[in-house]
């Protein structure tokens, strides 16, 4: 049984997804519980895989017992289990919140939402678990397609944003597919481990170089790396809150994972450094991404939209960590994938709670929110401080490694960019915190009534989100605080194995 864990990790959410509407036709309420059970099962499997991998090392699972490179292999190593844990964990948290939210926002259609939700989790898990280049494309499209559908369920502008996302997302996926084809022409293999052995002899082949270029651009589109991020703010802003809490933290991170896989598993660091100056190019793109993301975020009045632009900057962080090509840098990048997923998940869950309570997302209308929703806002503050890279929250530690990586690479501009960006984040988030904690009145305070009594907030009634929505928020906030001090342990146990030995 334990030998089949990797297959079950995909099979359970996939089959669960298709059973969900069947149950939903008869018992809509039961469908939610079913999907929850499936997600909990997937999370439990991820934990079991983590135990197995940390105890016995990476697993190579041969699907249908076809030996690679002919059959499809699932390669479960340390990085994979980390990502699986993130995907299933955040998926579970997002789902806990989605259930009550969906019941209100799209009554009667919940089972379909749950199906898409599970498919999304399946696709993302598949991307990280597979050891086969083409299989990865298939899972990429499973997650993208379910993502398109989920986003299209959102508010007014959602269909248009979705359509743009489909067009540009498909281009990204096609570029990736083209890269796979090019590699296949010269090597005749689709298996990552096999490719890693075959490719070094071909590093100077033009076909390989072009393949690499297609991979990079395709993945950069999926991860929303500047200047290919244009689909992201619209899509994530208009997505329904329960869906954005799943997609926003995970999609970009999984794409970043794919980038790491291609650059460090399929190709070797020697290629990324010695053959083409991809590291340098990515590094400078990251600098621009971080700065532009931050500045664009400053210009936003909509809280959710602001977060999406911050995500553009955060993607830049991860790419910068990859681009410096040394151990602390890549450690920081992987750590930041984890930390940022948790922070973004927490923030979007908070947005979900606000949306559920019908609170407008405009920052200027968030006054007295701490009175209304003290626990939600406390979680928001924790995530925000983490985003600013303040200890002991986890954001500080990934920033530490990233800065250390840039310093080790002698890239002082990169280091400076990281530091400036955390200050920009501080401005962004303290603007919100100041508003939510200090501004008197309900936000319509253009008249002078707010000065009636020094602190005219006494009449605000506490109106906290229901416990089912609040619990995942608080769990994520607690996680943000716990992951920080324990990051050393996590790096020792997991991430250090994911960094190529050459570093």
């Amino acid at each position, binding site marked *: 049984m334990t030998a089949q864990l990797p297959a079950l990790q995909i099979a359970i959410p996939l089959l669960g997804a298709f059973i969900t509407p069947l149950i939903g036709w008869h018992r809509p309420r039961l469908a939610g519980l079913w999907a929850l059970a499936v997600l909990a099962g997937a999370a439990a499997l991820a934990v079991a895989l983590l135990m197995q991998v940390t105890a016995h090392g990476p697993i190579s699972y041969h699907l249908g017992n076809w030996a690679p490179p002919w059959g499809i292999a699932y390669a479960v190593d340390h990085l994979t289990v980390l990502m699986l844990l993130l995907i299933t964990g955040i998926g579970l948290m997002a789902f806990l919140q989605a259930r009550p939210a969906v019941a209100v926002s799209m009554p009667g259609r919940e089972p379909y939402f749950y199906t898409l939700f599970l498919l999304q989790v399946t696709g993302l898990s598949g991307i990280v678990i597979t050891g086969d280049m083409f299989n990865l494309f298939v899972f990429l499209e499973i997650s993208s397609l379910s993502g398109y559908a989920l986003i299209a369920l959102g508010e007014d502008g959602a269909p248009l944003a979705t359509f743009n996302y489909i067009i540009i997302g498909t281009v990204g996926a096609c570029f990736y597919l083209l890269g796979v084809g090019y590699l296949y022409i010269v090597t005749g293999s689709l298996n990552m481990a096999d490719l890693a052995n075959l490719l070094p002899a071909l590093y100077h082949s033009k076909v390989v170089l072009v393949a690499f270029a297609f991979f990079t651009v395709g993945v950069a589109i999926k991860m929303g790396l500047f200047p290919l991020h244009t689909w992201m703010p619209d899509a994530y802003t208009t997505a329904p809150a329960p869906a954005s809490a799943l997609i926003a933290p995970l999609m970009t991170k999984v794409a970043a994972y794919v980038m790491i896989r291609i650059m460090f598993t399929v190709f070797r660091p020697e290629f990324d450094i010695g053959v083409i100056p991809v590291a340098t190019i990515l590094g400078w793109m990251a600098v621009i991404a971080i700065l532009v993301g931050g500045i664009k975020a400053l210009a936003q009045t909509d809280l959710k939209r602001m977060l999406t632009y911050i995500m553009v900057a955060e993607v830049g962080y991860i790419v910068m960590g990859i681009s410096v090509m040394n151990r602390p840098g890549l450690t920081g990048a992987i750590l930041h994938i984890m930390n940022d997923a948790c922070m973004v998940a927490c923030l979007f869950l908070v947005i979900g709670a606000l949306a559920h309570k019908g609170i407008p997302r405009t920052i200027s209308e968030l006054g007295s929110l701490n009175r209304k929703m003290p626990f939600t806002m406390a979680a928001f503050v924790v995530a925000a401080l983490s985003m600013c890279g303040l200890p002991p929250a986890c954001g500080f530690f990934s920033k*530490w490694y990233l800065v250390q990586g840039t310093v080790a690479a002698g890239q002082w501009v990169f280091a400076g960019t990281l*530091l400036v960006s955390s200050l920009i984040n501080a401005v962004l988030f303290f603007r919100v915190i100041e508003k939510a904690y200090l501004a008197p009145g309900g936000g319509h305070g253009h008249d002078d009534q707010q000065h009636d009594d*020094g602190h005219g907030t006494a009449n605000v009634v506490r109106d906290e989100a229901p416990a089912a929505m609040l619990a995942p928020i608080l769990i994520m906030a607690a996680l943000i605080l716990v992951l920080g001090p324990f990051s*050393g342990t996590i790096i020792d146990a997991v991430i250090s194995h994911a960094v190529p030995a050459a570093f």
Partner: protein
Amino acid sequence: MTDTVISTRPLLAVLVSFAAGMLILATGDRRPNLREGWTIAAALIKFGLVVSMIPTVLAGKVITCRLLTLLPGVELVFRVDAFGLLFGVIAATLWIPTSFYSIGYVRTLNEHAQSRYFFAFALCLSSAVGVAFAGNLLTLLICYEVLTIATWPLVIHHEDGAAIMGGRKYLVYTLTAGTGLLLATVVTYSLAGTLDFTPGGFLAGHAPDGLLMLLFVLFIAGFGVKAGIMPFHEWLPTAMVAPTPVSALLHAVAVVKAGVFGCVRVLLFVFGPNLLRELGIWQAMAGVAAFTVVAAGLLALGQDHLKRRLAFSTINNLALILLGVTLLSENAIRGGILHIANHAFMKITLFFCAGAIYAKTHKDHVSQLDGLGRQMPFTFAAFTIAAMGLSGIPPVNGFISKWFLCLGAVQAGELLFLFVILTSAMLDVAFFFPIIFNGFFREPRPDVAPRIDEAPLIMVIPLCATAAFSVLFGIMPDAVLHFFSITTHAVQQVLGG
């Protein structure tokens, strides 16, 4: 080397006020007496824990509490050595009077959001003691940043325009500084592979001089912002919009002292006196500190707002501490470190007095205080004692530290800096004594009550107590809390190490 004692006491000392903070939030505004009970209980427990470490440290041992590995070779570790203990004792001791005083202050003025206030206060203390006991730069940095954030709700407590602007200024200065510190710490780690504080420094020989100088500037600028070194002092007077107990404990003891403490840690335990001498950079540093001393003194003369005047006096004294430490002679370091303790007692007294006056009469400008000494004689007496101390007049404790500072300047052969120290004492007299004179001898304003009408006892007793302790430590510097012995230990560790 020094003996190491493994103990969880440092951790407990840090966590006790954090736990109290959580209990305060949980208790909320509905049961204020229970809530204040948590504050006072935590203050007493913390004091007990910290004081219980004094004998061990005086026996030449170091108390260590290792928690987690954060980076290869760097742990989250609390290590209590003599210098750390000194700061810890100051913070823990002064939290007790401040707690009582705060209760009196916020209740007298009927402040809003009292739970948040006491919560943030407890969190500040937690992190301040964390700063004191941090065993390496990373732990220090973590506690330091927590302190930064925990102070913000206190600065903006009034939630009016001035408070919010003050809060923003505070954040801009301190977060930027924190960022610089992060960079400096990362570079240090990359160079040396360790961040553990070592008496006498660990950075020597790890990098070319130019880079070391750059690091030095980054570190000192980073910690110097909180220590109010010019030109990074501007936030400090602005942050005086905070309630007075906040100004008292945080801006005279915890926050700014954390900055000074960090500077001294970097000077003596990261770079070390020998390296500083080799680089020759201590002279530049001393020059900046001396400039700050004089300029802050001059600026204080021009302030009519009492708390702003005190703020500039704080800047002046903090720079004096740094000047002492950067002179690098034994007596100067001793004087500087001792002044951390002495200044804390005197300055908190002064702020307590300012707060008592404000709570009673709503007066906060120097020009409004004519004749108020007749109405509030105890407050003004305490004020006089503390002001004398800061001006270096015996028998108050400020005299002791200034004496050693002067000796140190002579020992270092830097007569210019001796002159600076003496000038500063004269400036102190110049900006404090008019207040005292006005209070006691000017014709009372019409609104001054003709009889004794003090602030509530819960405020007057703490300020008298701190004033009394200032005198006690002036006469017997080693009494009760053994500040003098601890300082001597710290100096020996650094110079003899």
